[in-house]
């Protein structure tokens, strides 16, 4: 019983990360039908920048905001330089290669400058675990799924209620028609990538106190989160967050009942199978092929 609760709690925490990172993919995909493919490295960048900023003497909250701001700028630059020029044709994949390149550069650049070793980020919420029913978890870890759900609700409200949100949905739905409404499509895309990067960075900063910030922490998370977004159908925030959290929980149960080593193999195989069964994703809409 305690075991199951433990898997569930740590799964929720891990799932919160996937959900947050996947939300970023969803935001980017919606406006451009493309994404920063190595969004996971932004997640990593957020974490290590926060560590560096705290080491420079900033208070945790300021460091967090500063790291998110820097990542937002990096995200916007990636959109402008690496995605937009390589996403001109309907089925272009150039953006995938350029952003993979950027990911390699960011990760190895971080390794060279920050060092390959993990460093802790001190947070008051990661000092004493909460114990209940034989399970233990840091409050810091529980924040993740809560933030994911809060952001999901916030995003939905943002998309439905604000002008900018409506404009983003309009761009996602039909770029040309959006332009004809007077919406600057490129600016909207830039904002979306910045927003996605800030959220990705936040996810990294939130988990850093528990796992230590290290340059290699992002790549795999990014790929998994992209898988999560695709499996969810990448077309609505709710689906992305649900699938993200579920995937985290499933991984923890695989770890618990099969083995830690089997986690990725079983998890990815599951992803492939779901995609085969639902090529548009679980929550995705089927498009009618136009001939």
């Amino acid at each position, binding site marked *: 019983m305690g075991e199951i609760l433990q898997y569930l709690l740590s799964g929720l925490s891990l799932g919160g990360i996937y959900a947050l990172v996947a939300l970023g993919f969803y935001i980017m995909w919606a406006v451009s039908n493309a994404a920063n493919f190595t969004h996971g490295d932004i997640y990593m960048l957020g974490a290590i920048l926060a560590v560096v900023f705290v080491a420079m003497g900033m208070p945790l909250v300021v460091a967090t905001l500063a790291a998110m701001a820097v990542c937002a700028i990096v995200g916007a630059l990636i959109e402008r330089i690496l995605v937009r020029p390589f996403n001109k044709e309907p089925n272009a994949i150039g953006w995938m290669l350029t952003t993979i390149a950027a990911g390699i550069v960011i990760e190895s650049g971080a390794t060279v400058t920050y060092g390959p070793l993990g460093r802790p980020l001190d947070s008051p919420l990661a000092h004493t675990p909460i114990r209940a029913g034989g399970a233990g978890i840091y409050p810091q870890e529980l924040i993740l799924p809560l933030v994911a759900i809060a952001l999901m609700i916030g995003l939905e409200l943002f998309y439905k209620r604000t002008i900018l949100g409506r404009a983003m*949905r309009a761009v996602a739905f*039909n770029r*040309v028609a*959006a*332009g*004809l*409404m007077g919406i600057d499509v490129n600016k909207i895309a830039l904002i979306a990538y910045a927003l996605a990067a800030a959220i990705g960075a936040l996810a990294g900063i939130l988990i850093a106190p528990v796992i230590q910030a290290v340059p290699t922490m992002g790549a795999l998370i990014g790929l998994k989160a992209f898988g999560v977004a695709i499996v969810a159908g990448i077309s609505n925030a709710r689906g992305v967050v649900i699938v993200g959290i579920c995937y985290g929980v499933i991984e923890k149960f695989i770890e618990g009942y099969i083995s830690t080593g089997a986690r990725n193999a079983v998890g990815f195989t599951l992803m492939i199978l779901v995609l085969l069964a639902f090529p548009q994703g679980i929550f995705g809409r089927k498009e009618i092929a136009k001939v």
Partner: protein
Amino acid sequence: MSGANPLLQVAGLRVTYGRIEAVRGIDLEVAQGEFVGVIGSNGAGKSSALRAITGVVPPAAGTVSFEGQAISGMRSHTIVGRGIAMVPEGRQIFSDQTVEDNLVLGSYVRIGQDDAGVKADTDRVLTLFPRLRERLAQQAGSLSGGEQQMLAIARGLLSRPKLLIVDELSLGLAPRILEMLFPVLVDLNREGLSILLVEQMASYALQVTHRTYVMENGRILMHGKSAELANDSRVLDAYLGRHRPA
């Protein structure tokens, strides 16, 4: 036929896709308060010309000026800001958003600058199309084809354009509905709105417009008063599907 002060002036406009030339140098004018039609068969280059005028595609050559200022090469959101609204071919409403959201997006360029005006104009277009008022909270995608076209027109009007461009009003709509929509355009024009209508159904276009350009194969074949063109045997042959009147 050129007015003293043409609102829209297109000169030598060319549009190419790769090495294919869809529009091969056309001249076209819309005077203040005029209702101008462009007719021609599917693929004649009408929509390509409109895309270049509204900045959806960059023109390969030629100039487009609006109110005496060159707008060719600008992107569409800037052009909309200048006072041209487009009702695009196939409506292209945001069908995943509500009718109300679509209207809000239509007024995007004025939001924060003229909120009171937007409110008044929204009320006006909803009076013009009462069916939209009934369906304000509905998903736009659930509207019928005719209602979607109303929404597209309403959305276009909300940017308070000086020139309204309508691309293929008739597309997929029954005559019954067209006979309701075309008079709305005529009324809007009588109230002072300049309109450029591109229409495959020549019979309708020739009835509502003042002047008409006939396009074929990327060029303007002829132009003149609509009433005169409606009796021109070449137009009758090619676009009205009639044989020469005996």
